[in-house]
Each structure stands twice: as structure tokens, then as C-alpha cells.
């Protein structure tokens, strides 16, 4: 996919992830023991051969920038191309309201100089809030073969759950051509548009210009829905593991799905790695009092207690006589002795003092904010 420019939207429906996005954008939420959510899409793009990637940010992006650094972990720190972080931008004649983009087209308008300067023919535009490990080469081939204007990636299934209320759904004809695009429809919720698409760069440029001159800003409403008759929009079905993170509950479930060997095989078992920032931690130590079952555990931990069905991030210390189950414990959390923890998501640097009992529920895990002391 040499001829493709990557554009990643690093922010999204953050109100649904409340505590976890208080201090960061959705893309930099820790995930899966050693990653941030953005690692999956970024690695997938790099593994597809996309070497020039613009990251569109809106608010609270310092954590994301800290994580990405120069992009060297993703091989994106290069002389030619590489990582381009696009902070919010406003100027006297810009129609935007500073950091509060009303929609995608407005955000793109502010990034136009970066897009125009790029020489790639296609643009792969995507959200960063997805857990996946795939390549997009086949999708581009499909886009070219269909001579499509826009190709939308979709997942087939049943998405009646309200956590998909912010999503677009597609209807397609037998050729794959999109015949209808609906946002949160009452029925026909089986082709979920996951926010990844391929478009010709020249077309994107003119669409942005068009929207800007009419004070329009929504990609879905003002581009997809308004122009569906005039544009050749195709749907490309994704058969790989591809989970958008939409809410605390889906964040929890997607993390826990890593305990399934099949999911781990799909995400980590193939030829392509998921890259992330290196922390140079020591190996994890298990003491003779430890009892661990069905858990994914990163480096740098000290495990002295009982851990079952958990995702444990780097540098976590779980003391003796403590039972942690069905929980996600983020980096550098310390759980002291005599605690019972069940269905808890603990953000970074939390300290849970001796003999505390914390219980959440599978659909409503208790979330402990970053650096809190229980």
C-alpha cells in the first residue's frame, strides 16, 4: 500500500468512557496489558505498508503524544514520511471553533495543508479506537477493482446493543455497492460501518473544500448521506477480529476477550506484531504464595497473591493473601495484602490499601481513576 496516506482520528465518543478519558483521549487508553488502544490501528497501518500517517487530535492529547513520541516504535520516525501529529488548529479565517471540531470534515479542513502536500494517490482514513491486527491491502485492491469513490469497511453481525448507537449502518446491493447509510437506525443494524475507509485523495480534497464553502462539517451526513447517489460508495466486509471500543462495558469485554486463545491467536499469533512504546521492565516475579489462573500478565509485576481471569499491566504489585478476579489492573498499581477485588478496572498508579473489598458487576465494572488511593 505504498501509494496510500494514513489519517487517524484519535478522538471519539469519549463521554461513554468517562473516567478513563478524563485525562486522555480514547486512543491512549491502556489496553491488553502493555498496549494503548491506538497501537493496534497504527501497527495495522504500518504492517500494511502505510508509512505516512497523520494523527488528528482534538483534546487531552498530551498522553497520546507522550506515548507516540517520535513514532520510532512503529518505525515511523523517518527521513521520508513517518508520523505527523496534527494538533487542533485555528486561524482568523478558519470556520472552526478552535479545538472543538463539529465534525470530521471540519477537522480535515484544518489538516488540509498536510493532505495537499502529500503525493499519495489514496487516503486510508480511520478511527483509532479499534482493537484489530489486519492489513488493508486487500481492501485497497477491492477499492481499485470496483473503481469506487469511497470504500467503507464494515462488520457483519447483530449490533442491536445500545453501545453502537453512535454508529453508521450500511445497506448494500449484491455487488457490494452501498445503497443506504443510516445513523443509529431502529432496524437493519447488521452491517456496522466501523469508521475505516479508503478514498482517492483528490476526491477527499474536493469534498473538504465543498463542505467548507457550505459550512458543512459531518462526514457521515454531509458527505456519505448527501452524496450517496452521486458517488460510487462500496462496502468491504471485514472478516478479521475488529472490535471498536465504545463504552466501559465494551472496553472491559474486549480486554477480557484476550483470555480466549482464539482471539490471542488472531491478534498476536500471525506474522505481524503490534508495536508499542518500550518500557524496559524486568521480568515478572512469581513468589511461592502466588496462585494464578487464566490471566494475561505483562512484565515488571510482582505477584504474591491470587489472580484469576485478569489482565495485569506492567509494573503491578499484588501482595499476599489478596484475591484479584475478573479485573483489569493498569500499570504500576499496587494492591496490598488482604484485599478482595472483583470486576474492577483500576487505572494507572492506583494504590489499594490493606483489607479493602471492591466489587463491581460484569456489565458495570467499578472504575478507579488514575492515581487514586483506596
Amino acid at each position, binding site marked *: 500500500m505504498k501509494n496510500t496516506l494514513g489519517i487517524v482520528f484519535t478522538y471519539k465518543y469519549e463521554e461513554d468512557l468517562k473516567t478513563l478519558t478524563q485525562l486522555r483521549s480514547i486512543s491512549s487508553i491502556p489496553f491488553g496489558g502493555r498496549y494503548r488502544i491506538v497501537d493496534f490501528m497504527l501497527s495495522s497501518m504500518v504492517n500494511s505498508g502505510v508509512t505516512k500517517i497523520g494523527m488528528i487530535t482534538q483534546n487531552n492529547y498530551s498522553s497520546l503524544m507522550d506515548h507516540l513520541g517520535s513514532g520510532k516504535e512503529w518505525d515511523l520516525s523517518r527521513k521520508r514520511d513517518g508520523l505527523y501529529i496534527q494538533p487542533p488548529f485555528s486561524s482568523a479565517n478558519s470556520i472552526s471553533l478552535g479545538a472543538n471540531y463539529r465534525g470530521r470534515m471540519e477537522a480535515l479542513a484544518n489538516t488540509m495543508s498536510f493532505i495537499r502536500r502529500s503525493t499519495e494517490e489514496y487516503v486510508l482514513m480511520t478511527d483509532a479506537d479499534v482493537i484489530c491486527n489486519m492489513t488493508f491491502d486487500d481492501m485497497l485492491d477491492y477499492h481499485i477493482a470496483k473503481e469506487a469513490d469511497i470504500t467503507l469497511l464494515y462488520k457483519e453481525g447483530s449490533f442491536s446493543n445500545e453501545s453502537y448507537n453512535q454508529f453508521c449502518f450500511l445497506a448494500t446491493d449484491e455487488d457490494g455497492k452501498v445503497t443506504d447509510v443510516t445513523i443509529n437506525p431502529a432496524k437493519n443494524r447488521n452491517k456496522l460501518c466501523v469508521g475505516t475507509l479508503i478514498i482517492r485523495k483528490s476526491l477527499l480534497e474536493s469534498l473538504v473544500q465543498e463542505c467548507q464553502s457550505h459550512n458543512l462539517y459531518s462526514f457521515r451526513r454531509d458527505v456519505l448521506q448527501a452524496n450517496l447517489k452521486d458517488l460510487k460508495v462500496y462496502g468491504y466486509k471485514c472478516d478479521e477480529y475488529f472490535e471498536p471500543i465504545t463504552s466501559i462495558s465494551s472496553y472491559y469485554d474486549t480486554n477480557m476477550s484476550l483470555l480466549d486463545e482464539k482471539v490471542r491467536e488472531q491478534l498476536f499469533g500471525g506474522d505481524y506484531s503490534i508495536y508499542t512504546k518500550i518500557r*524496559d521492565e524486568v521480568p515478572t516475579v512469581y513468589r511461592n504464595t502466588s496462585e494464578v489462573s487464566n490471566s494475561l500478565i505483562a512484565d515488571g509485576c510482582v505477584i504474591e497473591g491470587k489472580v484469576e481471569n485478569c489482565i495485569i499491566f506492567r509494573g503491578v504489585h499484588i501482595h499476599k493473601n489478596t484475591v484479584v478476579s475478573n479485573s483489569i489492573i493498569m500499570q504500576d498499581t499496587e494492591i496490598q495484602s488482604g484485599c478482595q477485588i472483583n470486576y474492577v478496572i483500576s487505572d494507572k498508579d492506583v494504590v489499594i490499601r490493606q483489607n479493602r473489598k471492591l466489587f463491581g458487576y460484569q456489565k458495570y465494572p467499578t472504575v478507579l481513576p488514575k492515581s487514586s488511593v483506596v
Partner: protein
Amino acid sequence: MKIKKECIAMLLAGGQGSRLGVLTKEVAKPAVPFGGKYRIIDFPLSNCVNSGIDTVGVLTQYMPLDLNAYIGNGQPWDLDRNYGGVSILPPYVHGKTGDWYKGTANAIYQNIHYIDNYDPDYVVVLSGDHIYKMDYNKMLQYHKQTDAACTIAVLNVTLEEASRFGIMNTDENNRIYEFEEKPKQPKSTKASMGIYIFTWSKLRQYLIADEADPQSENDFGKNIIPEMLGNGEVLMAYEFDDYWKDVGTVQSLWEANMELIGVDSPINLNDPSWRIYSRSPNVQPHYVAPGASLSETIVTEGAIIAGKVEHSVLFSGCKIGKGAIVRDSVIMTNAVIGEGAVVEYSIVGQGVVIGANATVGAPKEICKPGSIALIGENLTVGEGATVEPGIMVSENIPAGR
């Protein structure tokens, strides 16, 4: 304009490490895996960076491919610098002839141009065989204070051990008056750690003289140091009293790995002010399956554990099958221990596959001390096969033997 470097390091990484047997069949000793996620060379390289030395020449000769790939541009150690950083220095052809590195001193001699490039005042000469954390900068301060031509780091060993080391006999001010290689009757317990700081102008002069002497073996211990002593140069012993381990033998490599485990581990690697850096394999966290049990064990990312593991070191990507038992062992990268297999008091090399129900080694308690079973890289031990304690395996073992 070039920036002068006050001090640079030369790391002798060309050793074969023949006493490590099959572990160094295809890699140089400094590239031998250690401690779950490291290679031996991570220790001197991290020490350099943590001591503020940002220019390191790594002299390679024996089986360098793996080592070269591992070091790469030096980025994991923060040694990818605009000026300086890490350089791999293999022997090369000059003029019409060319030479292998004939000895440790000759290796440095052949790279005089490299060192002169940085115009250093001091050169640290290191070997890639030891596990330790040391601030070379403190040693350099000592070297400067004492106005020495050469400072040699020494460790106090017991009198019994002393005859296995190069021993520095010193006066009360730690000035060295005599150097004895493996003395039968040691006069001192100050063992050389193989870490030297030289004033470059002096060393340069001695290297050139040494090269001109056809009788010389071109070795630091045998030639350069005695020559300097003979000429009345100031050679100082710098006493070091922290953890330092030569991992030159299978036994000591096993011990050093085990020493990382305990609560009272003599070397703390989890030290934010002195991190040991290594090249990350970029793999997912390790997974502990239902039914597994782990005790007094260190585990790295990428491992999958379904069996019972006690007092062992598990490297990244290794798999311990259901019902397998691993005790007192080192299981290296991507090794697979089949279901129901029992591995005790062993070192299992990278990529080894041990079949189901095979037996490797025996309980440590009943083994002779040091009779560690060792299985070389990428070999297969068939289903139900037996590897006796203390055996060094260098070819595949068929099933049920």
C-alpha cells in the same frame, strides 16, 4: 568540527565462550540469552549508557551475525547518536593484508583509528562476559584522582577462589605492583574483573610497542599489563564490592539466572536509576492458563504457561504444556515443553522442542552439583525421551529413548 569525547568504551565481544558448549555454537558469548529477556552484552552496554559513556566500539569476531543483528543501530540502549553511539568493529583488511584479532590487545590496536577519531583522554576496555551493574564514571574519577596510566577494577574473592582469577597484588594505597594469572599460592584476593580504564595516550604507545614485538601474544593480561608494570607506570586497583558474576560456564550461567529470582536477589534489576536495557521482541503479555502454577519464578512477555513451574527463569515466547513440570531450570526464548514433560536442573536453549512426557535432567537434590542438563538451540527431544542429568545435547534425540 568534531566534538572531543572525554572517555569512550571498547567492548571485547569476539570471545567464543567455548565453555558454554552448545549455547555458543552459533552465537558469540555476549549474545547468549540471560535472565528472561536479556543478553549478556546488555549489562556492559547499559552500564556504559548509565555511566554517561555514549561512544562504544563493539569488537566482534566469532559468530557475529546474531550479535550484529541484536545491537543494530544501538537504539534500545539509547546509543543511536549523531556523533558516537555504538559501532560494530569486526576485523578488516588493510592494505594488502588483513588480520583476525590475534588477542585482546591486538583487537584494540587494530582499531586505533576508530579511537583516535574521538580524540579521547581515556578508554574503558570491557568484556562481554559478566553480569553486574557498575558506574564506570566513578571508576574514571578514581583513575583521574590517582593520576594512573591504567586502573583495573578488582573484586575481593575468597583465598580458595583466588587461584581461578587474575590476581592483583597491591600496596596499601591499592597501587598494583604485580599481576599474577591464576596463581597457585595467591598473595592477594583482589581478582581482576576484566574492566580496565587506560589513559589513551599511554595505552596507544604500549599497543604500538606490543604490536612490534613478534614474541608477544598481544593480550592485555599477559603482555600489556606486565609491560606497563615493568616500566614503572602507575597501575591502580579499583575496588568494587557489589554483585559481579562471570557467566563463562554452564554452571555459573545457571547460577546467575537463579540469583535473579529470590526475594533476596543479590542484583536488583528493577532499579529505575540503573535500568538494564534490551531489545524488545514486541510480543503480547504472558498468559497463565487455568491449572498452571508458578512459584519463585520469573516470566517474560510472550510466554504461555499451562504447567507447573518452580524456581525457574522463563524467556519470552516459551510454552510450558499442560501437566508439564519445570523446576530449577532456565527455559530460553520460544522453547516448547510438551505436555507432561518433566524438566529439572536444566538449561533449555532457544527454540528447543521437548516432546510430551519426555524427561530432561533430574531433581536438583539428587544430582551432583553442577550436573546441569543442557540442550542446544533449536533441537528436538522426542516424545517420552530421556536426557540424563549433566548431559550436553547437541543433536536431536528421537522419541522414547
